[in-house]
């Protein structure tokens, strides 16, 4: 049965060939590099702990694309989605491969929320943190037809009728519900929180009027905002976003007031960071830190940041460890108050 066999093997080699071909051609360029620096010797597995097409996946695929376009690594990156258990599957994979220098992972704030709410035996200290690539903003959105002019008005309405306003969010006891809990704690109100699978689904539900509000990231609602379907009330950050280009007819991301300006004392930024397994050498970790720093200089990255209205922030080394420690402490505090912590 000559046809069948050629058919199945061809499909594998064609696909793999497509992915590896670029790498092989770039490998030749690097063989003469100095021996002091460590370089990967086989394809790098890039573990994504979010769903396909979501924010983490987009960022991972952009990094993969930039790395292969500018030939930044002698070996290609292979993006593998391991989003089972809210990303827990990917965490356990990285924790379970100490010393593996050919594996990196993109993690979000789910590195705290998932273990804290489910007792998953994982902590970010079980990995080697490499770099924070960006921070993700959260915005309070309502349907454009809603009568509220600002966050204050909306939260007063929510407060006057506890447990009637529907807040949609991705997952249960994850980032979206943590932000909702902060909002409730800051204003003394109570939402009916409805968990969905992901941000895309929630956007549609808000546009269709099936929920009253959500706390989606800017990129998840930008299309609907421009089309006049939803309106932003406030951003959960210390200061306004720096982007001045008009997104809609008369507003830019920078025109959205902070929640604090509306008298709501709530701030939240989500991590988008790269990790690798524990017990790797300094040379090995440095290779990736340098690689990621190079990715950040490329125009594709800059465009990605401004399109998604991410907070441009790059942290490595001691800064990063300090940041993770503080961020984790905050999560324990907020989630403890909201009763989201799993019982030991």
């Amino acid at each position: 049965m000559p046809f069948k066999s050629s058919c199945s093997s061809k499909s594998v080699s064609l696909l793999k060939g497509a992915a590896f071909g670029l790498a092989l051609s770039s490998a030749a360029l690097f063989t003469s590099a100095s021996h002091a620096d460590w370089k990967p010797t086989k394809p790098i597995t890039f573990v994504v702990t979010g769903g396909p097409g979501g924010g983490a996946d987009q960022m991972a695929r952009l990094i993969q694309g930039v790395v292969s376009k500018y030939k930044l690594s002698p070996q290609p990156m292979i993006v593998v989605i391991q989003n089972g258990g809210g990303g827990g599957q990917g965490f356990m994979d990285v924790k379970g491969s100490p010393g593996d220098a050919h594996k990196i992972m993109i993690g979000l704030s789910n590195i705290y929320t998932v273990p804290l709410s489910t007792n998953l035996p994982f902590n970010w200290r079980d990995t080697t943190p490499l770099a924070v690539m960006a921070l993700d903003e959260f915005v309070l959105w309502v349907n454009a037809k809603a009568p509220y002019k600002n966050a204050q008005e909306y939260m007063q309405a929510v407060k006057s009728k506890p447990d009637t306003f529907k807040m949609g969010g991705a997952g249960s006891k994850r980032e979206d519900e943590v932000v909702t809990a902060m909002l409730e704690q800051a204003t003394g109100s109570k939402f009916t929180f409805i968990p969905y699978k992901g941000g895309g689904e929630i956007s549609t539900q808000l546009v269709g009027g099936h929920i009253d509000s959500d706390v989606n990231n800017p990129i998840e609602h930008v299309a609907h905002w421009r089309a006049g379907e939803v309106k932003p009330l406030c951003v959960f950050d210390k200061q306004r976003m720096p982007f001045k280009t008009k997104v809609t007819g008369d507003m830019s991301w920078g025109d959205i007031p902070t929640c604090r300006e509306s008298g709501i004392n709530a701030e939240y930024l989500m991590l988008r960071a790269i990790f690798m397994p524990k017990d790797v050498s300094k040379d090995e970790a440095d290779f990736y830190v340098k690689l990621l720093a190079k990715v950040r200089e490329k125009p594709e990255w800059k465009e990605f940041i401004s399109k998604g209205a991410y907070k441009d922030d790059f942290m490595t080394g001691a800064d990063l460890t300090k940041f993770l420690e503080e961020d984790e402490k905050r999560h324990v505090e907020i989630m403890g108050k909201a009763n989201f912590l799993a019982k030991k």
Partner: protein
Amino acid sequence: MDQVVSLLQGFGVVLSVYHLWLMLLGIMLGILVGVLPGLGGPNGVAILLPLTFTMPPTSAIIMLSCIYWGALFGGAITSILFNIPGEPSSVATTFDGYPLAQQGRAGEALTAAFSGSFVGALLGVLLITFMAPLVARFALKFGPPEFFAVYLLTFCSFIGMGREAPLKSIVAMMLGFGMAAMGMDTMSGQIRMTYGLPQLMQGIDFLIAVIGLFGIGEILLTMEEGLAFKGKAANISPKVVFQTWARLPRYWLTLIRSSIIGCWMGITPGGATAASFMGYGIAKKFSRNGDKFGTGQVEGVLAPEVAAHASGTSALLPMLALGIPGSATAAVLLGGLMIWGLEPGPLLFIEHKEFVWGLIASMYLGNVAGLIIVLSTVPLFAAILRVPFSIIAPMIIILCAIGAYTVHNSMFDVGLMLLFGVVGYFFKKLDYPLAPLVLSLVLGDKAEDAFRQTMLASKGDVTIFASNWLVGSITLLALVLLFWPLLVGIWNKLRTSRQVPAT
């Protein structure tokens, strides 16, 4: 006719040598991706996505969407020949496609599947061309109650269709629900039924179960029955294509019915897999040959394929017009659009006209090219069944293993797939149906989420399922289908009792 003018401009964009070449390449890759069980459209598109970052967006989407068409076409091939669904949406194709192949009519089954796919896709594209803005708004009406009603409708249209004892169907369906519940529970945020195995945290992937249950299970059975394929005497003359075509028009009602189901499920977005099951279930209930379904009916191949392809195509509509992906592949394409710097949503049609209409034009051309390519391979594929079983069986097992591995690049899944093979073997030996298990495995957790979201929003009030005309009529339709055999029985009884006094 704005649309016609725009469409012609779209054809102008697509009809360049470079784009036609990309289209052919995409379709060939797609067919290969579809043939390999496990790889599937979403994975295939995701793997090739980074390669397109350097292309202009229009060229990139043409190639990627052609991979998608190719995968939809290719999924039917292994379903029919070996009872191994290459794509989740082609599970229902095995029900009649595989019996046809065993009778030596693989060529007919393949031709029917490909032609059906083409008809479904064509209607989906026509819908996108002429009704995009109108239909897209409709998708917004779907909240949790409506989604649950649609899933209920899928289950109800499928209930009571097997020959097996109803109790066995229920056992199989409940097993499926149990497996669908494994992994992360969206509603409570807890991880359930993983038995301490991190690999089970994402639940049991539908493809792994299907490859094992159908593919390996079938090989085990065949081995027991004498190491030979029943479809050896397959007709491999190219004439079979035209002979099958001549008979297709008589199934016009099934074609229309499945197209409507497919377009509906693509837009809402219920997905191609649900659409194919519903297409098959409804055709079985309402077709004149309904009771012969499952024994090798060409109509039983057409019904799910038309629905799957119509749904796969129309799933792109809500993605382009609203930014809601109607399928897993559409979700990956959506990620691509954003990386290329295009924002899907209502303004895409205005700001990036060339892109949108180029894509739509490529849907027409891609499907025509796809149909020609796959039809020309019918004799080749049908000839595979003439190869001795002892040569082909090990290859199928390798194919299944590669398929299971590629889903998440994990050896654990290969073991799981083999385990499912044994389960599949016993299911067949003990006369338990596989279809209800597969259906509840696919839709189980979605239905659960939708139901619990609804109950959260309504604070436990079940009457929400009759709270507006949309959800009310879908729920009613589901209940009518559920009790259909009973209603028919009562009707017949009434009629005979009225006739009795007359005679």
